[in-house]
Structure formats: C-alpha cells, structure tokens
C-alpha cells in the first residue's frame, strides 16, 4: 500500500526541464526519417523496388548481417564471460581493447583488417600462400568486416547482463558439483538470455547498416559485396531518388525486425 502510494508520487508530475529536451531529442531523431518518407518518390516506387539490384543487395545484406551476428554470438559470448567472470589480470585493458572498434572510424577498421587479413597482410599472406584464398572482395570478407564492427555491441551487452546476474545461482550449482562449463550452459546462459538477445539484435542492426569497414575491406561488387548501404552510397552519385528508395527498404527491414524481436523476446527490463 505504501509502495503503491510512493510510486504514484514519483510518477506524479513530469518536470518540464526533462520533458522539453526529451521531446527535442525525439524530434531530432525522428524528423530525418520523416524527411525520407516525405521526399520518397512514391509514384515510381514499385518499379524502383522491383529492380534486380535492390533484391540482390537486400538479400546480400540480410545474409551477411545474420552470418556476422552468428559469428559474434559464437565468439562474443565467451569473451563477455571472460570479461565478467574471468578473474584474469589486466581485465581493464582487455575491456578497453574490446571497445576499440566502437570508437575506431569504420574505414580505419577496414584498412586495419586489410593489413592483417589482406593478401599481403600479417596473417592473410599465409592464407593466400597455403590455400590460394584471400578474404577481400568476397562475401566472407563482408561478414568479417561486419563482425569486426558489430561484436563489441554484443560483448558489452552480454557482459553487462552477466555482471547484473546473481552469482549465488552459479555458486549453488558449483556446490552441487556442476563443472564450470555445465554451470555456464545450464545456469548462467539462461539467466542472461535477455541480454544475449538484446546484444544480438543490436549487433545485427549495426552489421546491417555497416558501410565504412565493408567498402574498405571487402570492396564493392554487385551480388558479392555490394550490401544495401554501399548501394545507397553509389546511388547517391547518380540518382538520389534511388538512394532514398534503398534507404527506405533498409529502414523498413530493420524497424520490422527490431519490433518483432522486441515483442517476442526482449519484453521487460533490459
């Protein structure tokens, strides 16, 4: 009863000093999208949408963003676990390193990837010498570039969830004789699932919109490496209306997927 009263008091009046900037921020974020909608060439939309290039770029974008997310989940969750539970020395430095791709301009990330994984790169050289394979200009290269920029989103999200999780459940599992791997699989992972999903969704959205690292590392060739953001950029050179249409498609797809995922899995406190 007391709790309910207090909650109402907290909810009571919304202070203008918070509401006004909040509305400004919302307008700032939403207006450019409304601009896209207003300026979209609705009349010629169907024919522009059905062109083969749009379908090709969209399919490639979805495949690459999803594959990159899978890569990030498989490698990122263990890394997040290490950061949250690892008890390793120099953890602060590792955490800082993990966030580097977040602040690195993606184009620089792309060049860095070339220097390591390119045909003459530190590691890529051997890949090329031994197997005759090089990542740049391939769809696999797009996935690598996207995973590079998107992985920190997943790692940070999962690490946050792991830190917030109650360690007593893990301790209980351990006292009952569970190994660390079993504890991780049966206790830790289910308890941080909302964090994992939120991280994966963020990661996927970041990968879908990835431009700089992709175009630098993987180049651009229709059907192989030209994802939607690259197609938008190239379309701007010749036909801005085509670029708007491509952007709308990207926008619609990401909004639809994010909304669907939020409703299904990520309801509640995140």
């Amino acid at each position, binding site marked *: 009863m007391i709790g309910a009263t207090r909650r109402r008091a907290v909810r009571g009046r919304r202070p203008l000093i918070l509401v006004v900037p909040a509305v400004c921020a919302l307008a700032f974020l939403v207006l450019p999208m409304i601009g896209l909608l207003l300026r979209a060439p609705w009349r010629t939309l169907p024919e522009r949408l059905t062109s083969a290039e749009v379908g090709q770029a969209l399919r490639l974008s979805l495949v690459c963003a999803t594959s990159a997310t899978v890569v990030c989940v498989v490698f990122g969750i263990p890394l997040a676990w290490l950061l949250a539970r690892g008890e390793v020395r120099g953890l602060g430095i590792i955490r800082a390193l993990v966030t580097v791709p977040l602040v690195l301009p993606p184009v620089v990330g792309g*060049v860095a990837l*070339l*220097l390591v994984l*390119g*045909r*003459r790169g530190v590691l890529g050289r051997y890949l090329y010498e031994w197997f005759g394979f*090089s990542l*740049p*200009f391939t769809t696999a290269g797009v996935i690598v570039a996207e995973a590079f920029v998107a992985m920190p989103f997943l790692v940070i999200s999962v690490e946050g969830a792991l830190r917030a999780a109650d360690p007593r459940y893990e301790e209980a599992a351990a006292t009952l004789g569970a190994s660390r791997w079993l504890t991780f699989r049966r206790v830790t992972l289910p308890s941080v699932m909302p964090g994992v999903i939120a991280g994966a969704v963020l990661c996927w959205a970041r990968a879908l919109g990835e431009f700089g690292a992709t*175009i*630098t590392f*993987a*180049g*651009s*060739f*229709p059907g192989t*490496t*030209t994802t939607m953001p*690259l197609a938008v*950029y*190239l*379309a701007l*050179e*010749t036909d801005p209306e085509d670029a708007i249409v491509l952007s709308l498609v990207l926008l619609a797809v990401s909004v639809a997927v994010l909304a669907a995922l939020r409703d299904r899995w990520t309801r509640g406190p995140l």
Partner: protein
Amino acid sequence: MMRSIGVALTVGAVALTAVGCGTDTAADQAQGGTVTVFAAASLTGTFTELGKQFEAAHPGTKVVFGFGASSALAEQIKQGAPVDVFASAAPKNMQQVVDAGEVTAKPVTFVRNRLEIAVPQGNPGRVTGLADFAKPEEKIALCAEQVPCGAAAKTVFEAAGITPQPDTREADVKAVLTKVTLGEVDAALVYRTDVLAAGDKVQGLDFPESTTAINDYPIAALAKAPNAAAAAAFVEFIGSDQARAVFAGAGFDTP
C-alpha cells in the same frame, strides 16, 4: 603532473596568442580578405601548394580550401555555400552549377587528367596492358561506373573492345588506389596524377586507349562570390605559367 599542467598552460597561451594575431590581421583582410575555393579532391596536393604561392604573391589575402567530391561540392554550392571559386574534376558538375545560375562567367579548362594502369610495386600479376583486365585470374579494382573515374574506365574499355572482369568496383579513385598500394589487387585503372602521388608503392603503365577518355577540369569564379576581386585573381593565377609548372609536376596535362 605539475609539469604537464605547465605544458598545457603554455599550449593554451600560444593558442590565445595565435587567436590574437588572427584579429590583428583584420586590417589586412580589408585589403585582400579571404578567398574560399572549393576544389575536387584530386586537386588537394597541387591546390594546397598553389594556395601558398598565391598567398605569397598577394600579401594579405588568405586562401581557404574545401576539398571533396566534385558532385558533393557542386551540391553544396547550389545549396548556397559562400564560395568564391569552384574547380571541378568533371565538366558535368561545373555545368550543374552553371545551370543553377551560380556561375555566369564561362568556365575555363585549366588541366586535363587521363587514366593509367596502376600496379603494385614489382607488378606481381605481370600486367602488361589493358587486355589483362579481362583475365579472371587477375585481381582487378575499378571505380564504380557512377563516379567519374569509373565512367572514364568504361569509355577506354569500350574503345579497346575489352570486357573487364573486376573483383571490386570502388566508390572513388582513392579507394581503388589504396587497394593497389596495399597489394590487394594486381591492377587497377586510376588517374595518372594518383599514380604519381602514391610514390614508390605503385607503378604506372601508360596505355594507348587512355586518350579516349581525357578528363577536363574546369574552373570558374562564382557569380555570388563574397570576394569577387580575389576570386578573379585566383582563377587567373591558376592559368599562369607558374601554376602550370606545378600541375605538370603532379602529372596533369595542361592545355
């Protein structure tokens, strides 16, 4: 700690002095003022150099550059950017500005550029000519056909009757050059000036069909130039023998 604060204070003081000097030149500005030049990204090296020479020849006048893609610069001028001079890497973008009524004088072609085959140092793909661009085993980078260097490449391939097999179509010529510099591709088509600017890491191979896609660079003072006198002086300077020597040194053809 104290020492680093001291350094910071010194740096701050120097910066303040510099700002002070800036206001002192207000008298000079009345005389020569600032001339704002929008120029194609491929002119970055030569125009920066020529800007210094122009400032030396016209004491009190300051040249400020905005470098970028000609298409983007033309768009900014049409949107009302306060610019005195526009130097475009393609007549098409200059024409857009003329059509918008931003240029009333006749634009002048001041340099020409043409394509060259760029290969990494040592020519690992043993590329000898344009015909190698049709070989699937060679890694090839070209500009996207939407951008000027890609359109020029299309013209030379059509003239040579060759269907290229590119592995990537980059968004601009610098991105193509990066792929060559890092040795990720065996050959690419870029401008002659880009090959020269890249230094030792890139070798250039001339090819006869390059004459079919000569790229003209027009320059013009803008109709609404805030500093019309300096704008006219700068355009004239770009056509001088002194400027031509700089352009020739960078690999441009001068008309």
